[in-house]
């Protein structure tokens, strides 16, 4: 059964800062079908119209978080956005806002990952060494499904940067860690294998830290994985101010015999 093919216009933001090229939009006519994604359309344009088009992508299935861009005015993953759902004959692709631009649709994630790294996004537990070399020294924690539920949605983050690009505070405050890093700080705080909340609280509880979030909620609005960073930030604020108590019991270790 043949599928109906439509023609759409793809307007792509073009610039190359290394060549001091002035920013402009290039237009490409692309044939699309019902299931064609924006990434498919961009790759079509790159293959048959202009091979110099700069796009970053990898998995094509919303797992790697590489192809984030502003599509028709909203931060989205190009591989996860079907042309048909946009209900528009002209698709405008811009690089993600709040990120330094490198070329065309490719942005620099250095600062974004630095914020993520700063909140120490890994399990802190004094009982367990992080320098395990021998396989026999590996240990397991006992965790109930209820324990997992407390942080599970936040662990779906793929670090695509869409929330960071939608955040109005990040747009004005470069020191603000952003919704991704702050929600990950909550993710590890809520995890009962982790005992490093005081370390993490000291990191986020500063002048340009968590309190500069104005709860606009646009981060949660654009997340392609259903994570609610705004919720994580508010819950973490509650812990910091003492309204809610993080009364988790640190998970015990499972012995080899169990």
């Amino acid at each position, binding site marked *: 059964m043949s599928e109906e093919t439509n023609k759409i216009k793809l307007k792509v933001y073009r610039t190359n800062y290394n060549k001091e090229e002035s920013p402009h939009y290039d237009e490409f006519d692309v044939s699309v079908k019902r299931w064609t994604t924006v990434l498919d359309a961009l790759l079509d344009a790159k293959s048959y119209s202009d091979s110099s088009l700069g796009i970053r992508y990898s998995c094509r299935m919303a797992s790697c978080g590489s192809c984030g861009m502003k599509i028709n005015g909203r931060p989205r993953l190009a591989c996860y956005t079907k042309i048909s759902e946009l209900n528009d004959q002209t698709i405008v692709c811009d690089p993600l806002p709040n990120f330094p631009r490198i070329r065309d649709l490719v942005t620099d994630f250095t600062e974004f990952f630095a914020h993520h790294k700063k909140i120490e996004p890994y399990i802190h537990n004094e009982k367990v060494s992080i320098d395990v070399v021998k396989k026999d020294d590996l240990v397991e924690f006992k965790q109930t499904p209820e324990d997992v539920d407390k942080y599970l949605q936040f662990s779906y983050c793929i670090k695509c940067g869409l929330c960071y690009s939608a955040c109005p505070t990040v747009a004005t405050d470069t*020191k603000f860690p952003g919704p991704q890093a702050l929600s990950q700080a909550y993710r590890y705080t809520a995890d009962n294998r982790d005992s490093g909340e005081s370390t993490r609280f000291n990191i986020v509880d500063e002048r340009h830290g968590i*309190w*500069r979030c104005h709860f606009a909620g646009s981060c949660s609005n654009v997340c392609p994985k259903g994570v609610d960073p705004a919720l994580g930030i508010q819950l973490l604020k509650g812990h910091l101010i003492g309204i809610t108590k993080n009364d988790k019991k640190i998970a015990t270790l499972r012995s080899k015999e169990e």
Partner: protein
Amino acid sequence: MPLLKLRESQIMKIHYLTGICAVFFVAIHILFRLIMPFGQSLEFHNVVANYHNIYYVILLELILVFISIHGFNGLRIILLELKQNQWWESTITILVLAAMIGVIAYGTRTIIIGSQL
């Protein structure tokens, strides 16, 4: 200065509490305006009579303190987001703190003079 060493969560706790208290006391203040026709309550002798009531004087002083702390900290937060460097942050914090103390001192002076304490 120890006040400047407060953690941001402590400052925000003060910010939220002063905000809630200001709403509560301003509501009482407005209710006082409504116990008689609004225009009449603002007539000179009625205002002076309010100033001679010690409970009302305390209420006015509390409103002044809570609104000044809440308002000036809010201003500090807005200004902090404009630039991100140590000099700007420290200058803004000191200036806002000085302005807050100045407004509270001037307001308290007015309340004391008005109440003839």
